[in-house]
């Protein structure tokens, strides 16, 4: 019978190389970072656009385009994390922690802006930041629970396999 040798596509080495690319932690962290930065940028631009009363039409058009670009990047990052580079349990905990830290800094900045300027846009950014922080905390809690459940099952199976 034939065996999958290195002479053919799909050899063991090919699949290992393929896995290295597919499992790249750098790519996953990159998409998570992209998601957070794009979401934050979109939140700021949208807040400015929606709360400033007398913006020239040209500026409004620019904010509209920038918001659309931000939403497109957010959508792309979400799609990539869902379909191309899904987060494993450990990655999800790391990503959740990153998101909580990032959004906390963002909220702190928004609080500073509210205190200094008191502008309506700053309140908009703060409200959006709090919402993002809540989502990040929720995702982190879910990720930690899933990781703990899987780790417990792993321990149980390791004992079971070790006995047999």
């Amino acid at each position, binding site marked *: 019978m034939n065996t999958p040798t290195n002479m*053919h596509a*799909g050899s063991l080495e090919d699949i290992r190389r393929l*896995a290295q690319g*597919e*499992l790249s932690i750098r790519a996953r962290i990159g998409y998570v970072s992209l998601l957070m930065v794009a979401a934050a940028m979109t939140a700021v631009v949208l807040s400015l656009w929606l709360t400033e009363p007398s913006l020239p039409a040209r500026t409004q058009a620019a904010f509209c385009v920038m918001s659309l670009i931000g939403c497109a990047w957010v959508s792309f990052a979400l799609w990539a994390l869902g379909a191309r580079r899904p*987060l*494993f349990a450990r*990655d999800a905990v790391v990503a959740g922690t990153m998101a909580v830290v990032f959004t906390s800094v963002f909220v702190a900045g928004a609080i500073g802006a509210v205190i200094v300027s008191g502008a309506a846009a700053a309140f908009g950014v703060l409200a959006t930041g709090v919402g993002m922080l809540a989502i990040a905390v929720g995702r982190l809690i879910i990720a930690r629970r899933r990781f703990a459940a899987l780790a417990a099952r792993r321990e149980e*199976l390791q004992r079971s396999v070790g006995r047999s």
Partner: protein
Amino acid sequence: MSHDFRVVNTESKSPDTDADELLAIRCQLGERAAFDALIARWHEPLWRYLRRLANNDDVAGDLSQDTWVRVLRGIGSLREPAKLRPWLFGIARRVAMDRLRFEYVRRGAEDIELEELPADDSTQDLEADLAAIDSALAGLPITEREMLTLFYLRELSLAEIAALLVVPLGTVKSRLHRARRELRHTLETRGAIT
């Protein structure tokens, strides 16, 4: 040479099921070493299954790569890690069937089958009996070939095959019975068994 085609695996839980589940869970956790182990353990069985469906080494290699991309992207959301084995072969089967559909559309043929893809002449069988079975299997229609491969070579249970093919258990039994009969007939015709 005589061959015994009795049912050798049962509906009971395979002793490897815990090990499979452990491997799947370690992958879901994100342990990179577990992915190496997953590939080391399942690359060859999947390749052989795909090779059996495609009758061609190069096509099997392409299908294998596509299968592993889907496995690596999908294992994190595998709901029942204990069913790793049928899940893996289910993905491989879907990849092969997608290829079949693509070839059907591309060639516009009415009766295309995977076994019509270019045959590979690099087969170097190690033993005469394996070669005879291999050759006889390759000559069977894809449904029978797949059934025998899943049951005897990949050692999936009848229930696992039924779940994988999305057909009732009775259908699996009747297909397996027909496949064994056809393989025996082919081997007898070729004088491989008496």
